[in-house]
């Protein structure tokens, strides 16, 4: 019989050894699900989708008609009543109520002017929900930004935001970088968009818009797109020694185990980090080179 006053010694769980493995069985919803579609708004894609949908609808209707004919002849041969003829469904009034606004053809003089100036460097222009979008070739983004800023008819003085998105299912590109421009004097907004494949370094917008500095650093930090000719292409939100790019779709929500480092037990690890930092300041690379 155990002594009543002696507290039970709690069992100390063993620390997991080896590389970090998250227990996905405990939380199956945390499994990485790669997207199958490319939800990139584009008029060309929209028109192609509409065409394909109409063709599929027509084919389905033809098949229904053919099925009806077969059923009719069969019923006639057997002497039964003829089946009911099929009715083609008409589109309902509220079919498009909960859908995103349709990318419409560009009417705005700004977009037309920009396309005329850029020529074939502008890949696509469209308007969606009254917002102007122009997709340009990824090599010509600096030229397009300079036009938007300096052309007297455009005069977009401010780069309000710059954002990036990962499209792993896309063909021919992996990321999109969107430049949200604002014209204070003309009270207008315009989006420029480039499609960036993996490994391509688009030109930095810093020489034209100084506000791009931190936003490009954030895009690099979160998605891993490096910008060429950027004055300081380092991480801005994550620590300098972070591995991986958290906003990529293949990055696990729980990370690669950084959050589970025990700073109390892993004093050696802390000391090693400090040593690496000091060595980095002195220009010595203590880190082992890693194969990508």
């Amino acid at each position, binding site marked *: 019989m155990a002594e009543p006053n002696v507290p039970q010694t709690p069992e100390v769980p063993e620390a997991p050894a080896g590389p970090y493995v998250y227990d996905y069985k405990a939380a199956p919803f945390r499994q990485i699900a790669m997207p199958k579609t490319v939800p990139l708004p584009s008029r060309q894609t929209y028109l192609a989708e509409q065409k394909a949908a109409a063709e599929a609808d027509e084919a389905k209707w033809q098949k229904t008609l053919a099925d009806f004919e077969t059923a009719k002849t069969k019923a006639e041969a057997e002497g039964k009543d003829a089946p009911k003829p099929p009715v083609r469904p008409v589109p309902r009034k509220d079919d498009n109520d909960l859908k995103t606004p349709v990318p419409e053809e560009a009417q705005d003089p700004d977009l037309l002017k920009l396309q005329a100036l850029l020529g074939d460097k502008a890949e696509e222009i469209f308007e969606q929900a009254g917002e102007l979008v122009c997709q340009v070739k990824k090599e010509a983004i600096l030229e397009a930004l300079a036009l938007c800023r300096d052309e007297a008819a455009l005069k977009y003085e401010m780069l309000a935001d710059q954002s990036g998105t990962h499209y792993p299912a896309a063909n021919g590109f992996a990321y999109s970088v969107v430049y949200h421009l604002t014209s204070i004097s003309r009270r207008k907004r315009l989006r420029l968009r480039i499609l960036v494949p993996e490994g391509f370094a688009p030109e930095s917008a810093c020489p034209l818009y100084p506000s791009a500095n931190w936003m490009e650093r954030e895009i690099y930090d979160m998605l891993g797109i490096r910008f060429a000719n950027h004055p300081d292409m380092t991480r801005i939100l*994550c*620590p300098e020694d972070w591995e991986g790019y*958290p906003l990529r779709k293949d*990055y*696990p*929500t*729980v*990370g*690669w185990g*950084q*959050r*589970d*480092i*025990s*700073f*109390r037990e892993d004093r050696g690890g*802390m000391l090693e*980090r400090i040593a690496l930092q000091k060595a980095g300041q002195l220009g010595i690379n203590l880190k082992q080179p890693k194969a990508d």
Partner: protein
Amino acid sequence: MGMNQPTALEHILITTKVEKVMNWSRATSVWPVTFGLACCAIEMMAAGASRFDFDRFGAGIFRASPRQADLMIIAGTVTYKMAPIIKTLYDQMPEPKWVMAMGSCATAGGPFDSYHTIQGVDKVIPVDVYIPGCPPRPESFIYGFLKLQDKIMTSSLADRYKDIFEEVG
């Protein structure tokens, strides 16, 4: 002269232990370090302001330097980037020192079951009192502080010595 009558000497003297006096003085003059990480810090400030008046318990003097403080209130989410800074601040505080983990983020990561959040500040520094809540109200914060005072009053120098020297040894 009966036994229940205090002597003249007992009128001017109290007999006690040094340890108890030290614990009493420490528990009634805890100086926290000014350190807020997220929204829990707002509740910490509310507890320090005039309505709840944290100063009643002798802990209202928030020091701007860890060298002058002996309580660290982790009020908010602890990110991976912030963890080494917390560790440094804790190491800069002179002994004896205590830590309160305020709110569910500092206790166990809270709603941020994500790549950047340390799942509880006890992975970085040892914690004396955990206060649940998101964020905890000033009342529960003060209750947690009273619990810390109890802990300080019952602490012993011998235990502290053991903690510091025999663990490392």
